């Protein structure tokens, strides 16, 4: 009930700031374009690194999306008003984390065509690719929402979020890149299963741990 209210609120607010989402998408697409200049016009190498570039673009874009999701809470201290209701900080956290998850998944899926066009990195296993993007986005969203909540309340929000988030999500990045890469380049040894399992394990740990800890972040 409380969670439903929190999710509805976040969806409404993120829909209202959909212009920002488009900007984040443009940022990710630009990053994908720029990465190809780091390699040079080598079609084979680009295809080899496509999965890594996709996830780096999504990771860089995620910090913008995540900090925006707390920006509207900080203007006029909107969240403080909600926290004084008989609602829990936990439902606010999960409302935000779920909505950020959705947003990052959409962002990731939207960046795929850009990757395919730029790097010639297509795959026929589209449902599997979407599943990997959804799982990876969940891994970015849970700790990302947690740290964004902290960073938003400090003076150094733009610097602090990536500094805290990037080292933490190294396993997500490794697993998601490997799994995506195997989908694009072929998976003769059937390795992708273990990477997907790693993503599931990371999500299980961080979706519960961060929800438990978020109360400490918002209460004074």
């Amino acid at each position, binding site marked *: 009930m409380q969670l439903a209210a929190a999710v509805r609120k976040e969806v409404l607010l993120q829909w209202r700031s959909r212009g920002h989402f488009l900007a984040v998408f443009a940022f990710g697409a630009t990053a994908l374009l720029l990465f190809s200049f780091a390699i040079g016009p080598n079609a084979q190498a680009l295809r080899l690194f496509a999965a890594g570039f996709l996830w780096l673009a999504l990771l860089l874009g995620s910090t913008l999306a995540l900090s925006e999701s707390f920006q509207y809470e900080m203007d006029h201290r909107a969240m403080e008003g909600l926290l*004084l209701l008989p609602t829990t900080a936990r439902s606010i956290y999960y409302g935000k984390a779920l909505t950020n998850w959705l947003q990052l998944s959409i962002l990731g899926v939207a960046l795929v065509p850009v990757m395919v066009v730029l790097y010639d990195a297509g795959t026929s296993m589209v449902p599997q690719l979407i599943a990997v993007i959804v799982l990876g986005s969940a891994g970015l969203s849970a700790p990302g929402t947690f740290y964004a909540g902290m960073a938003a309340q400090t003076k150094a929000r733009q610097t602090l979020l990536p500094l805290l988030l990037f080292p933490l999500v190294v396993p997500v990045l490794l697993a998601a890149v490997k799994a995506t890469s195997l989908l694009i380049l072929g998976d003769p040894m059937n390795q992708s299963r273990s990477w997907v399992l790693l993503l599931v394990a990371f999500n299980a740990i961080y979706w519960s741990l961060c929800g438990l800890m978020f109360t400490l972040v918002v209460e004074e």
Partner: protein
Amino acid sequence: MTVQGFSLPEQPSNVAIAASGLSRRFGRRWALADVSFRIPRGHAALVAGRNGSGKSTLFRLLSTAISPTTGTATIEGQDVTAETEEVRRRVAFLSHQANTYESLTALQNLEVFARHLGTDTGRDRLLDFLDEVSLAERAHDPISTFSAGMRKRLSIARLFLQDASVVMLDEPYAQLDPPGFKLIDRLFRKMRDRGTTVLLSTHLLERGAAMCDDGLLLREGRLVWTGPAAALPGEGAMEIAGIPEEVN
């Protein structure tokens, strides 16, 4: 200098707000130090003091926005630290901050608030509330186009949603125009009629004193005087509060 409670009720169940040794430290400063008082149910109390005397800290502590460093406080017998959720059910707090979402409309802000409250308030009812604070015409405009006074009115409309038995109004008159003043007065009278306990802070002492039963005076985080609200604007109280006469 601590002054013990006034108008002590015979039974604790008659106490709406009770603070005992309530203190809050922000780093190098005690914003509120060792404050103890009791306010009976249905009373209205005026909290006075200069800027930075601890009024807002007191309000935020009692409404569970922050937790005390030491001491305890109860709202209708419920402890603000241990039974936070029970306290939040009973208390409505009009703070300095508008607590609004800038990109949402006035109506949407109320809807978000109502849903988090868990009350199924219909759209028509919400529009009625907006009408009561004279915002009906702007119900579908985003808050970002609102003035500070209009934001305040929206915060007041939110108070109507909460069926609170204890209401805390921190500087309710700030940013409001004369019709806004009347709105607050009307709201105040309505709450008094319903037997709601009200805690009010304002720099408009004469106005506040006329509406309240009890008075509390804070100075540098300490409670330095308690007594009937009517006596607060007096010279003696002002001297205790450290407010120079010519300012008053």
